[in-house]
């Protein structure tokens, strides 16, 4: 489903990603964990080309892109993005549109789906994330948790092969974190392929089949989530988890 090979990314002279290799099979839930600045968010953003990698290759669904040989064509970028849906830390709902307008905008404009069909599908997805009753509200009138659930529905509307989550609960008040994690867990149970950057270790242990631990731009440890996040082999992973336990 996803295959990343020898991916490299620099910001100026600073290397943020170094020789990244990993695979995600269909139905797998992969968590990216690591300290701030370890490169996990950059890696996730590279997967739908919000950041352009400098070298290596990315395959998502049926599309493979190679980097390093000149600039990437705009159509290729669009095609690769078609296979992934992105959920942001700060939700990024469109504030001038209601919840329903937010989620049907891209299907209508980008995929040219009929409006009535998009609304029907939108209702199904909104009820799935528990937001149907709020469909006519503007994002400003919603709590962070509600906004994030709407943002998840918006990404799902495009029927992506893979869902990418960039610290989906980091901007939320503690009491709102659960409602969002529950939605993501529900998707995991349905077999949705997902890559999640998160600091919620218990959640990561519960939902993910695989965990990648990143440090200084490298994937230092990867394997079954339960093992990596409970009995890590590497010293840096142990240190990181110990820091979190102090809380």
């Amino acid at each position: 489903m996803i295959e990343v090979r020898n991916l490299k990314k620099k910001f100026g002279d600073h290397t943020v990603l170094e020789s990244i290799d990993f695979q995600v099979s269909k139905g797998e839930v992969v968590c990216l964990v690591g300290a701030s600045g370890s490169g996990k968010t950059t890696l996730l953003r590279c997967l739908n080309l919000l950041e352009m990698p400098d070298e290596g290759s990315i395959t998502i669904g049926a599309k493979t892109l190679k980097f390093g040989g000149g600039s990437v064509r705009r159509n290729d970028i669009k095609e690769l993005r078609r296979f992934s849906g992105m959920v942001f830390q700060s939700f990024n709902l469109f504030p001038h549109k209601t919840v329903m307008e937010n989620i049907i905008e891209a299907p209508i404009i980008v995929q040219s789906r009929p409006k009535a069909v998009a609304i029907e599908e939108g209702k199904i997805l909104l009820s799935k994330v528990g937001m149907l009753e709020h469909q006519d509200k503007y994002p400003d009138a919603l709590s962070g948790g509600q906004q994030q659930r709407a943002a998840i529905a918006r990404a799902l509307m495009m029927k992506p092969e893979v869902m990418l989550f960039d610290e989906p609960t980091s901007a939320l008040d503690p009491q709102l974190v659960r409602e969002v994690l529950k939605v993501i867990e529900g998707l995991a149970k349905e077999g949705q392929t997902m890559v999640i950057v998160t600091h919620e270790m218990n959640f990561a242990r519960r939902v993910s089949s695989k965990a990648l631990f990143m440090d200084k731009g490298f994937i230092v440890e990867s394997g079954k989530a339960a093992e990596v996040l409970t009995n890590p082999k590497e010293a840096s992973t142990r240190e990181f988890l110990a820091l979190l336990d102090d809380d």
Partner: protein
Amino acid sequence: MSNRAFTNAGSNAGMTTSEPLIVVPLKHYGRWCWAALTLLLAVAAMNSIVNNANFEWSLVAHYLTSATVLAGVWMTIKLTVLSLLLGFAGGAVLALMRLSSNPVLVAVSWTYTWLFRAVPLLVQLFLWYNVAALYPHLAINLPWVGLVWSAPMNSIISPFSAAVLALVLHQAAYAAEIIRAGILGIGSGQNEAAKALGFDRWQTMSRIVLPQAMRTILPPAGNEVIGQLKTTAVVSVIALQDLLYSVQIIYQRTYEVIPLLMVATLWYIAMTSVLSIGQYIVERHFGRGVAAQGRAPWEYVNDFLGFKQKRGKI
């Protein structure tokens, strides 16, 4: 610990006062005094305007709808609408050029804005009116095709076309800055969300960025619209018959200067008032989704007088 103590104290205090408190609005006596004084001054001013015979209100009424004046009003409206539509269209193009990643477009846009803001509109107006002295002929020559079209400049530049040209080019420079500021105010998260959903650049700009930018573009743009309506009065210097020039034509014949200036004043007030109301309605439309909606003037009056009113929806 301290929290609990506070709660206990609160509930004890609550028990000693058995009757519920009645909430009454605070009385603002000072406000009423100032309001009365201001109203008094306003009434005095009105009184002097109405009863000063020098205004010659009967003449004002006579000329207000005369054919010459109405033709002038129509010309002013035409100039305003044309220069705003073309000016803001040009401004939008200039703003997008300035924000593009092409250094040539950025430089051209920057130079244009610099140049046209640097020269007074009045000077530009004279320059365009006299452009025939610079370029006697206007011709389109295509490479390999040769001369496609040509005409003497004097047949192209009339007072009207010179006025439109000057007003549009001037307006575009200011509109560009207003639109650019509006676009810059939209966070990068909106762009990224649109990209991730597969929008191309044009769809992102037209569906996501510009509609949100309108909220910050509109108040200064409204200022420009109203300013532009009044600015069109400068065209009277090249003998274009707008509202001001029309009343000048009449009072140069009849010497009824003040009444005719009053006619122009009343028309300008009427037209800018209509524009202000229009601005208010448009701003409401683009303010969707924002909790702090602009309030209508009558809502302030209602508030002041203490009338109950519906709260705006969030």
